[in-house]
């Protein structure tokens, strides 16, 4: 399962990150590294881009990059 497969409200742990895409490295510099917990906050109309929250920050990224993040879903709480 990758980050791109989460639904809004899902929390997940980042397991393995494929660093071949330079865009992925930009996201890692923003703090999306292995072993942190992220939450899928919002998905824009049209299914892309995504808004992911972690450590009090929100970052938006495209699905294309999100697919490089392997995740384990932890909980699914629909956002209020």
């Amino acid at each position, binding site marked *: 399962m990758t980050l791109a497969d989460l639904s809004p409200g899902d929390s997940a742990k980042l397991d393995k*990150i494929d*660093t071949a895409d*330079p*865009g*992925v*490295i*930009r*996201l*890692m*510099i*923003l*703090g999306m*590294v*292995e*072993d*942190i917990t992220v939450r899928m*906050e*919002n*998905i*824009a*109309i*049209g299914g*892309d*881009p995504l*808004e992911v929250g*972690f*450590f*009090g*920050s*929100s*970052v*938006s*990224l*495209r699905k*294309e*990059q999100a697919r490089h993040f392997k995740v384990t879903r932890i909980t699914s709480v629909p*956002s*209020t």
Partner: protein
Amino acid sequence: MTEGTEVKIPVRGIGIRHKARASIALIGNPNAGKSTLFNRLTGLRQTTANFPGVTVEKHLGTVQLANSAFNLVDLPGIYSLDGISVDERIAVDVTLGRVPGTQRPSGLLVVIDATHLYQGLYLLEQLLELQLPTMVVLTMIDAATANGISIDVAALQDALGGIPVYPVSNISGHGLDELKDGLEHITDVTVPSIPASWPELSETAQQLAQQLGADWQRIDVIQALLKTHPDYAGKLGKQLGSETVTELRVRLFGDAPPAAVEARRRYQWVKSVISNVQDHAPLYEKMGARLIRWTNKPWPATLLFFAVLLLVFQAVFTWATPMMDVIDSASSELGRWLVTQLGNNAFSSFLADGVIAGVGSVIIFLPQILILFLFIIVLEDTGYLARTSFLMDRVMRSVGLSGQSVIPMLSSFACAVPAIMATRVIPDRRDRIATILAAPFMTCSARLPIYALLIAAFVPDQSVGWMNLQGLVLFALYILGILGGLGTALLLKSSALRGPKPHFMLALPEFRTPNIQTVAIKLYDRGRIFLKRAGTVIFVVAILVWTLAYFPRMDTSQSPPATLLTESVDQTSIINSQAAAQMEQSWLGRIGRTIEPVFRPLGWDWRVSSAVVAGFPAREVVVAVMGTIYAVGSEADDQRLSEKLRSAKWPDGRLIFTLPMVLGLLVFYAWCLQCAATLATIRRETNSWRWPIFAWTYMTTIGYVGALIIYQVGSVL
């Protein structure tokens, strides 16, 4: 806020003035509250200048403390030292002392948002490699408390190896006095020689820097190893041999990209620090916070976006009108008054029609630009602009761009100049240039007068359904501009500027109440920059057009125009027909006649051609030139000019302004790049003549071809 008001200042003050002040760099993540802190620390003792060679403004201020003073440089926000956008790179280069003519900072004041310790500490750890005296300001303490976050400042200070940390409230300014006291000693702070997050890298780089000699700093070695600075990476390979460097890289990074390894290593450390120093108590979300969370959901957010857009447009075009009318009539009144005072001669005409009209044509845009900027700055400070990019990314992707091009595109509905400057935040150079070339297509306010004139004169004022036909045509012209811009972006992104698909990654800040002082200072700043950038160009252009239209003078001994002989004509129409005759034989008129064959296939006579030629440096002069050419005076109201246009005929009696010709003319104005200020800005921002020349040629060509097709096809039908 207490300023040092002690009596002993004079003695101390003299001492300080004699020695060069230390320069401290204010650095931190975007939206960490840097500007607010900068304003609080410097008060109004600040100036804005350009960094040499680049277009990024530098904000310099003086911090006057009780016993000392230093210069503070406010830098664009960054997340790491691997900055990629123009803004980010300059922040990094100034911090590292790599900008010629800019003093290398003797200390760093690192701003960390207490609600974003995670990214703030990452940047801090990178900055510690500079081994400069460093202090940390923890901003947004009150926001953190409101979010249920509490931070053990003493524990944080310990984790950072003893670097002073000052919590400051962003709303009340609480903690500022302690910070100011601490700042007296900023240059005495010693930072840990090996930052805790990645000791292996720091140690390796330190040893290499000593081995390589004086022109290598530790941070240079680090950037060379991480390949985040290509020049240093190359230099390091040359000095050590590429095999040694490869070996070092393998030992430090394994086979993963160095930047990814750095993120993993440092964030792992940051995470452990946060778990020790930060406590996050889940709080019941307040009503306001829940509302904001709801408005961030896709559908409400998108609807809100269009509502905000509507409000901004309404404001820019409705609220600004009274102010623009005042400026307009003031400048023409002043001109008229000058002419009555000085008599009608070359000098008074130069002052009235050249200088005053020129200055007027610049400041008339100021109300719109300031209103637009006010909205943009407020939206930026609330964090909403980033969200706009998020919402519109999907649409922009269809033309090969990303959400980050949305703001510049929207700004160019007022004026392309600030829009082009706003592209600096776009990290990818190809995306940035495509956006720069698309922006001038948007219907800027300078196009509106000619649109208004032609639509009022030639489009019947009738209803189509519940809409007005004239309004519909104006709307169509806006759409035409948008299509032109997006089409251009698509074309460029799939040809000359083809590249890897743009990434779109953007930190989305949460909602914050903007600080009035910060907004006011930013607004003043941007207005000033506009006047300086666009103002000088438009002013020069106005003088140039005046010269072309005024010289050479008509020989007054020639027989008077026929109209003079008729008794019924009044004084004004005599003056107007004289002015028209003068225009006809002026350089501008001659250019119009010479160039007429070029525009003949578009159905334009020499008068229209002259007006269009005069509009090339600045399209806003077109209506005034038409007024003069058609002998109704440059100040005539649209109605009289409209009548003249409607009855203008070719020598053989056919009407000049037929519907196909007018539609073609409108298309020409929608697409043609008639603005020297825009060209100058493109030149400055792309740092080459290639793009302005391309933009001009390209837009003029498609404007011409568009008008040609419409006129020729329309005339046959």
